[in-house]
């Protein structure tokens, strides 16, 4: 295809865990085109071996996150026109995660840290009990609500310089999840969660740089959740929480 004003010059990272390099593709520019549209076009029209991951295409599933011009983004909701540099755009796999192939990263370390942070619900009732009533204006519920809409896209994790410097660090998403459970009155293991996030690699390693909140596509603030965890673990240490 001829390279003209209606063509995008797209650099796509190709490779695997052992390394790789950027490969250039010319893709026709279209109105309201997203980065995911560009990747799909390349895979369907030029190179069917291009590996990437997506599912819902509407910003709900959190599976299509990639690095676009060096910044982590949800590609299905990122318009090409908003990130284009001249006619160029660079697409790479998310930072801080092992690459499986091309643009697809291995999410195992990311979700393993959710488990390490006790980011799992610990029920106290059975299906035979009455449903617990939680007031939407209860302060703890308000705190949990502010953090609960995470779609597990790992954009915050990829943007976090602390994760890059300290691979043991649980990361913003896992700690944000832990914070929602700390504030869930129906969760039965609040102290276990506080203990889990206080270990090596826990919430106290956060440098409060705030990349997580800057890049979160759902406009959540994991840094606020982590500050809450620091506060509650400290209170707990002094026997006041």
């Amino acid at each position: 295809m001829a390279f003209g004003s209606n063509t995008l010059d797209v650099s796509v990272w190709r490779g695997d865990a052992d390394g790789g390099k950027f490969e250039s593709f010319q893709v026709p520019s279209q109105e309201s085109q997203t980065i995911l549209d560009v990747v799909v076009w390349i895979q369907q029209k030029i190179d069917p071996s291009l590996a990437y991951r997506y599912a819902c295409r509407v910003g709900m599933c959190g599976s299509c996150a990639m690095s676009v011009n060096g910044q982590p983004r949800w590609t299905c909701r990122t318009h090409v026109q908003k990130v284009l540099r001249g006619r160029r755009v660079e697409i790479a796999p998310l930072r801080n995660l092992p690459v499986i192939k091309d643009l697809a990263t291995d999410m195992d370390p990311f979700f393993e840290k959710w488990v390490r942070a006790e980011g799992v619900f610990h029920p106290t009732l059975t299906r035979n009990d009455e449903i617990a009533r939680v007031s939407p204006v209860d302060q703890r519920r308000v705190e949990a609500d502010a953090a609960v809409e995470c779609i597990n896209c790992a954009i915050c994790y990829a943007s976090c310089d602390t994760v890059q410097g300290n691979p043991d660090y649980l990361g913003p998403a896992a700690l944000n999840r832990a914070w929602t459970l700390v504030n869930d009155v129906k969760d039965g293991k609040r102290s276990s969660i506080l203990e889990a996030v206080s270990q090596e690699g826990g919430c106290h390693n956060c440098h409060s740089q705030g990349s997580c909140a800057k890049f979160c596509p759902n406009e959540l603030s994991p840094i606020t959740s982590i500050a809450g965890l620091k506060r509650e673990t400290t209170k707990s240490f002094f026997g006041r929480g």
Partner: protein
Amino acid sequence: MLTLRLFILQRVTALIMAPLVVGHLALMIYAIRGGLSTGAILARTQGSWPWALFYGTFVVAVSVHAAIGLRVIVGEALKFRGALLDVLSLAFCAFLLIAGLRAVLSVTML
């Protein structure tokens, strides 16, 4: 790298240092404005338990605070972990303690 205990220790030492730094700055400004000589300053500090306690506390707080901070920097930048990181942190803390307390003793007691 940072556990809850180290995090609290670093925050508590910061709380201790804050008023001591303000006190030290106020003292320096007072000493310079009044035109006190080194001899005059030493005459006031020699044998003074309050000044020994003031600067001794500061040295202890700085040693703990800085060692924890350096631990994080070394851990993230050089990827040191485990016993090596513990030994380095403790060695730096000990160095600051010895150097700082030696200076405090020189000015107040010796």
